């Protein structure tokens, strides 16, 4: 495990803390809005996993593409999505990223390479493989990245994706957020192996990190991204992390042992980063300022989302297919 030895400067750590705080603030607000009935459907929160989103997605370039999963709020925010349009989407408004057609499980922003959260476990993997293939063939210099949980290891398409990426030396970073839970079942009842071991079976170099240590995650991500971008083929970073909330919001988690929660506070990536900042001599006021800034940004985004309008069915219907005029028919032109 690459952890412990990395000594960041306070100038490096404070922005990482602030980014994690923003994601935490977003999801705590989502939880409240969901409880108040302001968000329809259901949502999956990544509280406790902020270090993986910030450590990895924050280390990507804007033109790097990212495929995410159902627990993807943090990934999207760390990739640089606009907070207002994010809330607008999750609250089902016309002005949201997806015009209110996707919701929490489908937030996407192609302008920053965010290819979408995904409601199907493992489905982002082959999409990222194809995106990496496009980067390789088009020589864009960008890479693809995909987040998936340990639960996705049980999906057949993950094995196909690992194999294809390794065979073709594709520029792709696999990131496994190993929180030990596949929906309502613990890993020991789901998986016969471990993510990094499986990757190594496909000759994909893998690194395991403490996924609640944002500095360790970022260091592992930067090193893996550099290798992938240099043409070394796929890499995997396995982040051992903690799912604090249920599989979905409202899940009472009766299947979890109460003892499991005893040291959750100690594992909290935000608490750990804050403690480290204090140890580095950062003033309490500076940490509080980051917390306050996150709250303010979320307040503004939620206010904007509440002011959003309801989507029109006509517009939704019109977007099932591309407008016919978008691309002139080259074959028709040539023959005309």
């Amino acid at each position, binding site marked *: 495990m690459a952890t412990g030895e990395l000594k960041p400067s306070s100038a490096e750590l404070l922005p990482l803390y602030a980014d994690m705080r923003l994601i935490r603030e977003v999801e705590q607000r989502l939880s409240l809005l969901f409880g108040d009935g302001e968000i329809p459907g259901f949502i999956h929160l990544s509280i406790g996993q902020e270090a993986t989103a910030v450590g990895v997605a924050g280390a990507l370039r804007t033109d790097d593409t990212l495929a995410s999963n159902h627990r993807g709020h943090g990934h999207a925010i760390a990739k640089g999505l606009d907070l207002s349009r994010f809330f607008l989407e999750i609250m089902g408004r016309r002005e949201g990223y997806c015009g209110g057609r*996707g919701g929490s499980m489908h937030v996407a922003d192609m302008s920053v390479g965010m*290819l979408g959260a995904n409601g199907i476990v493992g489905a982002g993997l082959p*999409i*990222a493989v194809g995106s990496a293939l496009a980067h390789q063939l088009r020589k864009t210099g960008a890479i693809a990245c995909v987040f998936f949980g340990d639960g996705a290891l049980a999906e057949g398409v993950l094995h*196909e994706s690992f194999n294809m990426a390794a065979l073709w030396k594709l520029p792709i970073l696999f990131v496994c957020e190993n929180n030990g839970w596949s929906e309502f079942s613990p890993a020991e009842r789901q998986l016969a192996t471990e993510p990094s071991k499986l990757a190594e079976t496909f000759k994909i170099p893998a690194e395991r990190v403490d996924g609640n240590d944002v500095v360790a995650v970022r260091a592992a991500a930067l090193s893996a991204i550099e290798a992938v971008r240099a043409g070394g083929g796929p890499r995997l970073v396995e982040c051992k992390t903690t799912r604090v909330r249920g599989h979905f919001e409202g899940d009472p988690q009766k299947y979890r042992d109460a003892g499991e929660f005893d040291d959750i506070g100690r594992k909290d990536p935000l608490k750990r980063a804050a403690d480290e900042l204090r140890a580095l001599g950062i003033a309490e006021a500076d940490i509080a300022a980051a917390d306050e800034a996150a709250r303010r940004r979320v307040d503004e985004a939620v206010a904007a989302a509440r002011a959003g309008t309801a989507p029109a069915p006509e517009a939704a219907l019109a977007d099932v297919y591309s407008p016919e005029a978008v691309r002139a028919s080259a074959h028709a032109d040539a023959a005309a």
Partner: protein
Amino acid sequence: MTEVRFGQAINRALIDAMTQDSSVVLFGEDVGEAGGPFGVTRGLLKKFGAERVRDTPISEAAIVGAAVGAAMTGLRPVVEVMFMDFVTLTMDALVNQAAKARFMFGGQVSVPMVVRMPHGGGINAGPQHSQCLEAWLAHVPGLKVVCPSNVADAYALMRAAIEDDDPVIVIENKALYAAKGDLPEPPAPVAIGKARTVRTGKDVTIVTYGAMVAVSLAAAEILAKDGVDAEVIDLRSLQPWDEAAVLESLARTHRLVACHEAVEAFGVGAEIVARLADVGFDELDAPLVRVGAPFMPPPFAKSLEDWYRPDAGRVVAAVKRAIA
């Protein structure tokens, strides 16, 4: 005008599209070195190189899933599912990803990809290598589905599919690969969604597509001897399908039979007759009749398969019900 085989016309369409647009790439099982299981991609690896023409592992889910990601990242992939029966393994990528990306991301992105898949019987390939499953795909909002019946359309629909900004399924009937026909020079374009009247007639409209077009024409010749003048419409495109052309024909003949090789129940024909029972109700002089395979998996033995696949005799019998 050049006489070529159906498979060669598709090959030529792929060559022309890849020559014209460097973002068009091909991948699938044995499409490169081997030239495809039916020889459709023969010579393309040599012509365009291993980057653009790629043999994949036997990983249908990842092939089609990767096509989605590639299409969202600037390529126009044309991928092959070796037999349409294997589409079962690709359904998440097709149904939950490709078909929905544009819609569920609010129109931010298009998914310009083509999935080629051979369907149909006639080669005694048995229950898992002979099915016609196009109705499944035509049922999914966001997918387009085309199925050519002849050489000129095989070329033109492939070009149209590649140029289309949405995911298009090109269904190729295996029994047609060796069929010969004329490819115009230069090849004429065909728009997705436009049917073609292949035989005009005044007594009954036969709506069909793919390999059943030739079967329906044969039936029309038999019917002509009995004094029944059948019009035959080749849909060419199943999703979207040319309802206006079919309705226009029905308005003249007032009788309609929908034919396909796929199982009759819950098929493309069911959609056609259901629509016409609604929008064409005032035109109808007779029940709308369907012809399709019986409700059983495609069987292997030659005698069984011959019995299973709809033939001209079955079309004739259906028409006789419609004109009775």
